[in-house]
């Protein structure tokens, strides 16, 4: 008894995995996929809006100076709760305009998070590639370090470093990046390993030097798409961490402002000025939601490609 030719249509799709995707068609795919995804659109709109505000914030017209105090105006409620359009989101305990402070705070909050993720991504990926490429003892060392890091998450490192060196923005950036590098390391290392095995046959037919080139040519496109997806995911965590550190007073110090710090300062006024805490937290939540939606969309885009292979295999049996 022998099987009828038994290569399902899925086999083809699987074999193409390592091939470098062509730039233009990927972008076209992304765009057509985006059109179908409301979450993706919402994520991109929210993220670009906040990025824009963070960049052009200080030059926005009609906005009062975020650090201008005016004690007679202190704790003015927002519009709709008895406030006026001169302070649409109300004022804080020193009479400063909440909206202006939110926009000002966006700069620090986002700058710190983005910087931390970039550092973590560059260092982490480099370590992962080294670990996967060289292997052996260096691999063991890097992976053990990643395991230890898992057991010693950011906030604990933050506590000890702030206790030792005092609070600063730079410290927060360092702490966030050391609590996220190993995620990139694992992915970078895993990619090298898969490519080593899937491309082994192909590469072994070529000379040593060109096999290494083949490897890089296959590695880079895969790496870039994974890194973008992962960075966006880590950015959401980084913004939340930054806000927690700022809230605990570890990061930027007054009179500079950040969202977490606004909550720390507003928490004594939750009975007669609930809007300070509420709007600052809302800003964090909305931007993190935007980043999360973006990340969900990027992941679903990757998943759909996989799912389609499954569908194509399914009718076979």
């Amino acid at each position, binding site marked *: 008894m022998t099987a009828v030719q038994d290569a399902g249509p899925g086999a083809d799709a699987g074999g193409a995995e390592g091939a470098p995707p062509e730039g233009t068609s990927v972008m076209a795919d992304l765009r057509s996929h985006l059109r179908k995804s409301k979450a993706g659109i919402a994520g991109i709109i929210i993220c670009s809006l906040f990025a824009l505000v963070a960049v052009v914030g200080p030059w926005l017209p009609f906005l009062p100076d975020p650090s201008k105090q005016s004690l007679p105006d202190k704790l003015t409620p927002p519009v709709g709760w008895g406030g006026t359009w001169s302070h649409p989101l109300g004022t804080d305990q020193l009479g400063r305009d909440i909206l202006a402070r939110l926009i000002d705070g966006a700069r620090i909050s986002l700058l710190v998070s983005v910087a931390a993720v970039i550092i973590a991504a560059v260092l982490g990926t480099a370590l992962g590639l080294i670990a996967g490429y060289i292997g052996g003892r260096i691999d063991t060392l890097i992976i053990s370090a990643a395991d230890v890091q898992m057991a010693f998450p950011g906030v604990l490192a933050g506590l000890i470093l702030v*206790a030792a060196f005092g609070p600063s923005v730079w410290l927060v950036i360092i702490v966030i990046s050391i609590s996220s590098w190993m995620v990139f390391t694992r992915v970078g290392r895993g990619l090298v390993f898969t490519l080593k095995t899937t491309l082994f046959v192909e590469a072994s037919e070529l000379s040593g030097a060109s096999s290494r080139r083949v490897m890089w040519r296959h590695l880079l496109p895969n790496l870039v798409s994974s890194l973008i997806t992962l960075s966006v995911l880590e950015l959401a965590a980084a913004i939340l961490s930054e*806000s927690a550190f700022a809230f605990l007073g570890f990061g930027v110090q007054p009179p500079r402002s950040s969202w977490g710090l606004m909550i720390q300062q507003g928490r004594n006024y939750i009975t007669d000025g609930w809007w300070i805490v509420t709007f600052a*937290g809302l800003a964090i939540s909305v931007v993190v939601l935007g980043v999360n939606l973006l990340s969900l969309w990027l992941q679903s885009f990757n998943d759909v490609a996989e799912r389609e292979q499954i569908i194509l295999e399914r009718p076979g049996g």
Partner: protein
Amino acid sequence: MLRWLAKRIIAAALVVFVVTSLVFVVTHIFTDPATVSLPLEATEEHRAQRRAALGLDRPLSTQYWDFVSGLVVGDLGESFWQSQPASKLVLERLPATLKLVAGATVVTVLLAAPLGMLAAWWERRFADHAVLGFSMAAISAPPFWIGYLLIIVFAVQLGWVPTFGSAGFVSLILPSLAIGLASAGRLSQMTRRGIVEELRKPYAVTALSRGFSRSYTIVHHTFRNVASGFVTMTGWELTRMFTGYTVVIEVVFAWPGVGRLAIHAIENRDLILVQAAVVVLATLVVVTNLLVDIARRMIDPRVDLA
């Protein structure tokens, strides 16, 4: 099983050792407890005096040996802020933190398991999207802000629960919710994804083809297979709680736990006490991971013994 357990315990002890050594490097080589405890404008003479008093002028190897041997017997040094053994201060606060984590875990599991099953049951229907919406909101909002919102609504506006402190069971509810919502958001999505994946697997298709209903198959067949993943994820959430959420939430709710103690210690420039709190929390993380591994092994007999 015993050999496996012994191996895991040794590995865990090793991680604790490495982490504490890293802490020592920060607290004794990059700076030292005496310098931290003094104001910046203190004279060099003053500093030297303080160092000598704390035994920090001895060779680093001696100090490290003292630190490690102290760890083994549970001696984490003396707090200058409180003039008491640091380990005693931390351990006094530990029950409060554990209580908070326990409450948050209950909230997490009670929300995540049913929501995840519900979403999987109604896959791609309204309930599925609603659960996804809840999850996205819960993981996007900072837990300390959720804490203040809960205080504003339930304590300030409605007056149902006390705002601060740890007066009995009722005061545990809000902080547990503040911590547990985000964890439940992540965990419910993981549960849903796990069940949906399991439902596509041949054994679940077989069960459905035998005429078992979708709900019966989810509860009696797939959930057990998702359970080891569920336990692992719950374990990860526990470690998040120990190291991040509890610290901020204890500050928000003035909860007398280890995290708030650490923050107060920082404010009082008490490096030894911060170090003790961090060592204890890191140990809890490692112990949690160990317990998760053991639990997985018990749920799923196939988990590798190696």
